[in-house]
C-alpha cells in the first residue's frame, strides 16, 4: 500500500511540474515568439484603442520582460485575469463558463464514445478476420481520418430544415445547428439561466455537436480496443486459462478483458489532447460557446486578455485528466506499482 502511495505522489508531482511548464510555455507563446507580437501591436479597430491603454497598464507592457513575467504570474494565480475586449466581462468568469460548456460537450460525447467504441472494438477483436471485423475496422479508419470540422458541417446540413434528407424521408429529424440561443424562442435569453426552457434547449442543441465529436473519436477508441484485445489474446496465459477448462466467455471475462483494459485507458488518456482539438473544431462549426470557440474568437478579434489565459486552462485540464487516468491505471494494473 505504501508503494502505491509513493507512486501516486510521484505522479502528482510530475503533473504539478508539467503544469508549471505549461504556465511558462503559455507566457512564451503569447509574448515572446518571433513574428507579429500581438501585445505590442494594438488591435487596429478604433474602438479598442481604449483597451490598448488598459492593456498596457494591466499587463505592464512597458516594463522589461522578466517583470512582465512576474506580473503575469501574479495575475494568473489571483484569478485577476482582466476584462475581455469583446464582451467587456471579466475573463475569469467568461472562461470558467466556457470551460463548463466544453466539459459538458466533451463529457457527453466521451461517455458515448467509450461505450460504443469499446463494444465495437471488442466485438471486432473476437470476430477477427470475419466480415464484422473487416468492415468495422475499415469504417473506423475511414472515420478516423475525417476532418472533424467537415463532419460537423455535413451533419449540420443533413439535419437542417429542408435538408436533402428531411425532404426525402418524412421521418428524418430536424436538429438545431447552433448553440442553445434560439432567438425565435421568447423564453430564452442570451444570458444563461438555470430554468427548464434553457436546459432543454441546451440539451437539444447539444445533440449534433456531441454526435460529431463522438463519431470523430469513436473510431480511434474502437481500433485501439481491438488491437489491445488482440495483443492480449495472443498471450500465453490465455492458453493456460483455456487449458484449465474455462469456456470462451469465462476466458474473456476473467483474463482477456481485465488485461486488455489498462493499455486502452492509457492510450485514451494520451489521446485527450486530440479529443480536445476535435472539440475546438466542433465548437467553431456549431457556434458553441466553449473554450474552443473562445480561443478562435480571441485570436480573430485579438482579444488579448482572453487569449493569455485560455491556453493555460486547456493545458491544465488535460494534465489533470491525464493524472486521473493514471490513477485509474494504478488501481487496475498491479504491475505498475513497481515501475
Amino acid at each position: 500500500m505504501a508503494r502505491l502511495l509513493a507512486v501516486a505522489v510521484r505522479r502528482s508531482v510530475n503533473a504539478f511540474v508539467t503544469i508549471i511548464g505549461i504556465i511558462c510555455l503559455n507566457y512564451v507563446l503569447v509574448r515572446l515568439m518571433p513574428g507579429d507580437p500581438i501585445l505590442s501591436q494594438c488591435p487596429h479597430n478604433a474602438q479598442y484603442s481604449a483597451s490598448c491603454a488598459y492593456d498596457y497598464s494591466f499587463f505592464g507592457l512597458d516594463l522589461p520582460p522578466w517583470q512582465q513575467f512576474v506580473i503575469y504570474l501574479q495575475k494568473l494565480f489571483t484569478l485577476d485575469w482582466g476584462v475581455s475586449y469583446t464582451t467587456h466581462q471579466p475573463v475569469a468568469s467568461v472562461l470558467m463558463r466556457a470551460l463548463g460548456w466544453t466539459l459538458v460537450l466533451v463529457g457527453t460525447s466521451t461517455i458515448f464514445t467509450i461505450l460504443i467504441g469499446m463494444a465495437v472494438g471488442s466485438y471486432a477483436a473476437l470476430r477477427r478476420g470475419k466480415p464484422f471485423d473487416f468492415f468495422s475496422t475499415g469504417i473506423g479508419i475511414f472515420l478516423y481520418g475525417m476532418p472533424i470540422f467537415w463532419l460537423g458541417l455535413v451533419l449540420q446540413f443533413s439535419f437542417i430544415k429542408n435538408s436533402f434528407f428531411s425532404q426525402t424521408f418524412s421521418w428524418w429529424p430536424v436538429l438545431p445547428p447552433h448553440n442553445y440561443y434560439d432567438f425565435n424562442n421568447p423564453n430564452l435569453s442570451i444570458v444563461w439561466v438555470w430554468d427548464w426552457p434553457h436546459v432543454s434547449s441546451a440539451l437539444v442543441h447539444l445533440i449534433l455537436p456531441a454526435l460529431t465529436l463522438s463519431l470523430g473519436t469513436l473510431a480511434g477508441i474502437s481500433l485501439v480496443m481491438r488491437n489491445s484485445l488482440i495483443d492480449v489474446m495472443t498471450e500465453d496465459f490465455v492458453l493456460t486459462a483455456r487449458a484449465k477448462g474455462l469456456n470462451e466467455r469465462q476466458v474473456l471475462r476473467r483474463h482477456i478483458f481485465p488485461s486488455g483494459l489498462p493499455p486502452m485507458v492509457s492510450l485514451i488518456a494520451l489521446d485527450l489532447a486530440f479529443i480536445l482539438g476535435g472539440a475546438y473544431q466542433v465548437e467553431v462549426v456549431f457556434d458553441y460557446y466553449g473554450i474552443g470557440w473562445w480561443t478562435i474568437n480571441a485570436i480573430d478579434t485579438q482579444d488579448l486578455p482572453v487569449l493569455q489565459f485560455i491556453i493555460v486552462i486547456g493545458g491544465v485540464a488535460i494534465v489533470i485528466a491525464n493524472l486521473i487516468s493514471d490513477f485509474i491505471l494504478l488501481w487496475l494494473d498491479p504491475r505498475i506499482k513497481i515501475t
Partner: protein
Amino acid sequence: MGATEVVISRPSVVSPFRAQLTITGRRLGEVWHQILHNKTAMAGLCILIFFVFLALAAPWIAPYGPLQPVNDAPALSPPSPQHLMGVSRLGNDIFSQVIWGTQVSLLVGVLAAIVASVIGTAVGLISGFVGGWVDDVIMRFNDIVLSIPWLVLMIIVAARLGTIDLLGIILVIGLTGWSVTARVIRSQVLSLKERMFVERAKMVGSSNTHLLLRHIFPNAFPLIFANTILTVAISILSESVLAFLNLSVRQNISWGRIVAEAQKNNAMTIGNPGWLIIPGLCIVFLVFGFYLFGYALDEILNPRLRRR
C-alpha cells in the same frame, strides 16, 4: 551406400557495409513482396497513387488556375458543363481549385511529416539512448507540449508567423507534430537497449555512435517508417484544419479553405452542395489512403497483429 557428403563452404570476404546493404535489400524485397500481397496495403497504395497523379498532372488537368478569375460565368454559379463544380464568390472555378488543392495537401503533408519525423526521431533516439537527466528533461518538455491541445499550439504558432507561405505552414505543422513520434521512438529505443546484442556489442568495445547508428537505428527503422506514414496522414488533417481557419497558404488554395468558403457562402442552400462535400471527401480519402497503407505496413512489420 551413398553417404551424403557435407561440404562446408568458405564464406567470401565482403565488407560489412556491403553485407548490411544486401541484408537490407533483401529485407526490403521481402516487405515489398508482402505489401503486394496485402489487400489493405494495395488499396491504400492505389488511393495514394491516384492523388499523386492528380497533384503532378494538375497543370494539365485543371482547366483554370486556382485563383484565376473566370469570364464566362458569374460568381457563385452552380455546377455547369463549363464549370463542373460551379464558381466561387471571387469568380474562380471550383473544380480547378480542388485539383490544385491536391498539390498543397500532399506537399505540405509529406514535407511537414518529414520535418516532424526527423525531429521526433532525433529527439526520441537521443532521449532513449542517453537516458539520465537528459531523458527526463526532454520527456518533461514533451509532456508539456503534448498537454497543450495541438490545435491551439498550431494556431498560435501560425498566427505569430504572420504571412503564411508554403514553408511557413510546413514548419508550423512539423514543429508541433514531433512529440508523439519522439515518444514512440524513445520507447522502442529503450526496449532495444535492453536487448542482448547491444550488450554484447558494448562489450566488444563499440563506441556509442557506432551502437546508435549500426545497431539501434536499423532496428528502429521499420517503426520510424510506419510512424512517418501515419504522421503524413495527421499532417494533412492538420493542414486542412488550419486552412479552414484561414491560417494556411495564401497563394494556393487548399481543400480546407474551399470548405470554409463553401460554408461561408452557404453552398448547401444555393444549390451547390458539391462545393462543400467534395473537397471534404478528398481530404477523407487521401488520409484514408495513408492510414490504410500505414496500418497494413504496421501489421507487416509487427507480426503479432497477424493471426497467430
